């Protein structure tokens, strides 16, 4: 059998690990379970303990040539278990019985007590040359024990046997307190939970203890799919220690809109993140697509990662206003990644995004990314207070990959003041561009302004932002915006407002949009 060999904490020692093969669990455990260790896996019914253990067995057989014995103590029958597992892709019938062997220990412990059960386990492990042993239903063993001390001695003896035989042990039980006697004896404690948070059913995994090794602490989201368990470590802890040296070279990245790029001093610096903030229909998506298309024109790869509009609709929308998105999608310079409006996991979304960027063109520098929008991540968040740290970690990671990111965030349609739904976004991005509506004389206008641009000079003026069938455009100067804001708005194509005309001050932007010619797209 081959074992993985991993760098231990401190960098000097190398140790053998049983890889779980469960997506990202080995990352959380910094390599997997230690060979010869005993680990408690606890959780309520339905939290995924049995799937986890069987998945570890099957992966251990497939990837490390291991041999597994799975003992049940008054849990579901083997036939039922195999029936349920058969629908999961990791489970292979051909492993039974030679490499994956199911036995019951209930009768033994019931009739012979722990002495008989230990004897049975020791013999079975030796005869089957097992490298991984699972006991499913430890609570039954505890209930059958004559005293807490007898149970403690049983767990201790199991550990000794595991160490001697070089066999790793997983002890599965229903949820028990972290200070339970079993948990104080074993080398590691993993808790699986399954709870309702609001209307959502959320499964999570927490490592409470892992002797002799570093691990990722805290709760991590768990998905059960037809591939088995998938763990999504919290993004902010995955990338909690970004390297000091990022790759970005600070080249200006334009939107392909002359005036806007001028306002930005030539564009946003490569490797930075820019937030486009505005009410629905103010043109955020079109501006973001324009950013991608401009990159494609310059030979830079771009990715759209959005939640609301499927690719055909997006292409149609862009082409309607003269943004040639389709040709760059067809030639592969721009990839459209649409997340259907389902219940997502925030960390899973971040993983998907980073994975795509990592796999697609990892060698390419100065890639562009358009995330449409931040509210997609917000909606997927189980714990809202994680959002600031999550966004910070995600944008840091994108910076490290030299990805220049445009991310939209939506304001309420009838919002009198600029009140960001994700205020933290303004802190983690380098540039904030605000798009807003202005209603004047039965016509809707759009205004654009740069609210913030870190470490760079920028034009602070408010500009009119137009969307027509010929394209999107930012006004040459602040005058048109000034005219609008001062109440001197005019119908497009009509002569300028008469000097000395009555002035009316517009105190706030973003009133209810009317049905004027400059309406939203």
């Amino acid at each position, binding site marked *: 059998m081959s074992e993985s060999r991993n760098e231990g904490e401190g960098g000097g020692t190398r140790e053998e690990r049983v890889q779980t093969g469960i997506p990202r669990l080995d990352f959380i455990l910094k390599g997997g379970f230690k060979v010869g260790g005993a680990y408690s896996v606890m959780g309520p019914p339905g939290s995924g303990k049995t799937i986890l253990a069987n998945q570890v067995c099957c992966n251990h057989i497939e990837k490390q040539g291991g041999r597994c014995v799975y003992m*049940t103590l*008054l849990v579901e*029958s*083997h*036939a*039922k278990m*195999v*029936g349920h597992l058969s629908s999961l892709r990791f489970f292979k*019938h051909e492993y*039974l*019985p030679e490499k994956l*062997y*199911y*036995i*019951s*220990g*209930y*009768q*033994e412990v*019931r009739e012979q007590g722990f002495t008989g059960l230990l004897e*049975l386990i020791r*013999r*079975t492990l030796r*005869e089957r040359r097992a490298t991984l042993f699972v006991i499913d239903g430890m609570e039954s063993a505890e209930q059958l024990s004559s005293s807490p001390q007898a149970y403690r001695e049983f767990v201790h003896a199991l550990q000794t046997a595991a160490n001697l035989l070089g066999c790793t042990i997983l002890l599965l039980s229903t949820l028990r307190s972290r200070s339970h006697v079993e948990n104080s004896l074993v080398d590691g404690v993993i808790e699986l939970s399954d709870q309702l948070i609001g209307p959502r059913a959320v499964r999570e995994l927490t490592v409470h203890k892992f002797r002799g090794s570093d691990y990722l602490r805290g709760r991590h989201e768990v998905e059960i799919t037809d591939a088995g368990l998938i763990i999504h470590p919290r993004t902010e802890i995955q990338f909690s220690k970004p390297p000091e040296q990022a790759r970005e070279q600070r080249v200006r990245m334009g939107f392909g809109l002359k005036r806007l790029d001028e306002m930005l001093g030539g564009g946003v610096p490569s490797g930075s993140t820019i937030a486009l903030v505005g009410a629905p229909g103010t043109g955020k998506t079109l501006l973001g697509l324009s950013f991608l298309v401009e990159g494609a024109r310059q030979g830079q790869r771009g990715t759209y990662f959005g939640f609301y509009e499927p690719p055909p609709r997006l292409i149609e929308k862009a082409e309607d206003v003269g943004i040639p998105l389709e040709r760059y999608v067809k030639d592969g310079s721009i990839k459209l990644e649409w997340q259907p409006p389902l219940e997502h996991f925030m960390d899973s979304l971040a993983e998907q995004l980073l994975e795509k960027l990592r796999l697609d063109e990892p060698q390419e520098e100065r890639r562009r990314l358009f995330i449409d929008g931040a509210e997609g991540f917000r909606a997927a968040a189980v714990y809202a207070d994680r959002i600031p740290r999550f966004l910070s970690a995600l944008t840091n990671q994108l910076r490290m990959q030299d990805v220049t990111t445009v991310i939209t965030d939506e304001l309420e349609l009838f919002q009198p003041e600029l009140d960001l739904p994700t205020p933290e976004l303004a802190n983690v991005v380098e540039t904030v561009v605000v798009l807003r509506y202005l209603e004047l004389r039965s016509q809707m206008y759009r205004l654009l302004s740069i609210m913030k641009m870190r470490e760079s000079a920028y034009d602070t003026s408010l500009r009119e932002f137009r969307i027509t069938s010929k394209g999107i455009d930012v006004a040459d100067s602040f005058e048109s915006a000034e005219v609008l804001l001062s109440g001197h708005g005019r119908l497009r194509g009509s002569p300028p407002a008469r000097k000395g005309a009555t002035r009316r001050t517009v105190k706030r932007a973003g009133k209810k949009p009317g049905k004027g010619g400059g309406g939203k797209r």
Partner: protein
Amino acid sequence: MKNILVVEDEFDVQQVVADVLRDEGYEVAVCGNGREALEYLRKHRPDVIVLDVMMPLLSGPQVLEQMARSPELKGVPIVLMSEISPPESEPRRWHVFLRKPFRLEQLLDAVTRASGVEGRA
């Protein structure tokens, strides 16, 4: 009255199978693993053995292998039961295969069929 030996490590399955067979009028003995079964077979010769594959100490196929070496036990009808089909490559030392999970009528049918094949293994 026919004697049946049920060799099964899962206590619940073992008890249900034994009870059903008893209700049908069979004499039933039970063993929880392969080693116990071989000990029992040193002293008794059942008419049919209902044998599980995966068990502690000795597996079903290991029991069959030992039985094949014993002239006294050769030919005892075997109902082999398992969650997976037996591999084609292994010698066929059983008479009727019963896939788990099974319904009671399938169990009874398997035992009836096995009863009729004595001596033909």
